[in-house]
């Protein structure tokens, strides 16, 4: 088992024939991910990377039975692509695109409430269930199948974590990059909840950063319902107030969203917080014995 994506997923690539879409779709196929086709409006009927291209997501779903979609559409059209996927019946929508206007995501989030689907991202590295399906832009070779789940707001910091875990001999069940935007489709708490309920996940790493209250919300949930050890790192202890640190969502507004405040809440809720990003792997090893 695992969460969100696995070897039985039927994956569609939106923005399939663009540079990004082409490159990463090929990488996903090379990893053995079950990609069934792609969508580029106006290029329906073509073949690309040996797979069918469709004009619309609903066409693609009808013909291929796709249930997962990954989006590489440029920012001005990305929110529309998310809504199109939801409307067509895609269950797991993973949006890689960075730079979508906040107003577009506020509307999109509202639109998605009418559908039985889950959005991961935007502005995220995607989701991988090692050995089964890579639906994202992460380097595949650092991963190893196993039982540690990862939830993260950051891309390269997730790779760093995975690499440390693999080198400690700890494989991963599913790594979920929820993204660095202020309005994410899936929150830290929701992703943690998925992994807590996954029988094949034994421990969870939570990578957070300054800004917002997602980590605190997740921590309170863990204190109440958590059944597995959780290691956490919060990036941005040295970030100044009021400056956006790369991710649109990484900005310290008030007292509650500093790294220090978040770490204090997490510790209070029984989570093993490491201060140095170099200690994530060893800490998880220690907890899992």
């Amino acid at each position, binding site marked *: 088992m695992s969460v969100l994506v696995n070897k039985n997923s039927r994956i569609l690539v939106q923005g399939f024939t663009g540079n990004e879409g082409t490159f990463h779709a090929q990488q996903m196929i090379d990893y053995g991910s079950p990609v069934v086709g792609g969508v580029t409006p106006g290029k329906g009927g073509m073949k690309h990377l040996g797979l069918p291209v469709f004009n619309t997501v609903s066409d693609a779903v009808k013909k291929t039975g796709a249930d997962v979609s990954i989006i590489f559409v440029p920012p001005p059209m990305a929110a529309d692509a998310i809504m199109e996927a939801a409307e067509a019946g895609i269950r797991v929508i993973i949006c890689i695109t960075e730079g979508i206007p906040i*107003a577009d995501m506020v*509307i999109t989030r509202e639109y998605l409430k009418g559908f039985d689907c889950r959005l991961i991202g935007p502005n995220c590295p995607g989701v991988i269930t090692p050995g089964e399906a890579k639906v994202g832009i992460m*380097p595949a070779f650092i991963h190893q199948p196993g039982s540690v789940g990862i939830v993260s707001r950051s891309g390269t*910091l997730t790779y760093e974590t995975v690499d440390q875990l693999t080198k400690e001999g700890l494989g991963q069940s599913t790594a979920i990059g929820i993204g660095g935007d202020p309005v994410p489709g899936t929150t830290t708490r929701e992703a943690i909840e998925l992994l807590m309920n996954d029988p094949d996940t034994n421990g969870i790493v939570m990578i957070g950063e300054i800004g*917002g209250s997602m980590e605190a*919300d997740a921590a309170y949930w863990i204190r109440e319902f958590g059944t597995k050890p959780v290691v956490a790192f919060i*990036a941005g202890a040295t970030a100044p107030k009021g400056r956006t640190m790369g991710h649109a969502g*990484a900005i310290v507004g008030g007292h509650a969203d500093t790294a220090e405040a978040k770490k204090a809440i997490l510790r209070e809720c029984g989570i093993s917080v490491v201060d*140095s990003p*170099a200690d994530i792997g060893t800490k998880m090893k220690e907890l899992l014995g």
Partner: protein
Amino acid sequence: MNLHEYQGKLILRKYGVSTPEGILAFTPKEATKAAQDLGKNTGTTRWAVKAQIHAGGRGKGGGVKIAKSLDEVGQYAEQIIGMMLVTPQTSTQGKLVRKVLIEENIYYAGPEPTLEFYMSVLLNRQEGRNMIMYSPRGGMDIEAVAEETPEAIFTEMIDPKVGLTGFQARRIAFNLGLSGNSFKNMVKFVGALYQAYIGADASLFEINPVIKAADGRIFAADAKVAIDGNALYRHPDIEDMRDFEEEDPTEVEAGMHKLNYVKLDGNVGCMVNGAGLAMATMDMIKMSGGSPANFLDVGGTADARRVEQAFRIIMKDPNVKAILVNIFGGIVRCDRVAQGIVDAYNNIGTIHIPIIVRLQGTNAEEGKALIDRSGLKVHSAIRLEDAAKLVDQVLK
């Protein structure tokens, strides 16, 4: 992207939000002329002289004055233009004031008392919805109000499908204790303010204070406005309002090279791929006894050109005593990055401060070997904790 008060008010007026009449001035002479014109147009006999910089708390630092005569307008403008204005939101050196906004006085006498409220429109991240936050206790630091009298802060969460509803606008006006004409004016004011926020793709509209004048009119007396940078492509008119003089020149230059750079005041520079890893690297520098001099995300393509640009930008800061490069090679191969570093190093000539390069991920060993063989005075590491130790070592 942050805007000046006078720019924010241009947007507000476009959407029908009432603001005091005002004219921008770059010299004391222009300021006096502006005050004269405002006197003619509005009949005002007092004027506000307000420093235009990208920071709040301007009044506290002496950047906002009320002038009772045209002479005083000139004197205050003389004082304020060219000053280094220090506010709770600037650095200790302050910010150079290049222009002032001259406005008609709205604290005039009349049949009713003049009141000051607080109002802002912003994103509530937990709900993923915009909200209006407001308080009858305006004119003061809203964080202090929230701390001391949280019951004096109200919010209206806005459903994006329908926007601000009539009953919500009325509730706001009632909660602010208004009736009669000022009530009607406030309902209109709130509606227009929300329209301006949505129309401009703003991420913050903070009006502190909102004034109920003695004749029942409602004014946005101040305007702190931030626009969502991701949405600027659909607002070229607002994009043109960007004031590069208000930004750190090195940050502007970095931006032109598509490097995401934020200057800090520490002694160890860093160059990292990815925002989260960059923040984590800064934290690690602190734990190793240094202090981060910057945030710098080189993005996905760490080739020689970008690495060189990044090095040059980091080294503009004279406080930098060492540089830590931390790249996790995923799609980008570490040996390529290493070659980029070697080339950049040679192109720049001699670099007089220690450089630590930590490469991990695809071809990390090859990358390290390449650096070690180059003969350059560069320390290399593969594990994050080894990089941390090297930072500690070179600072000693």
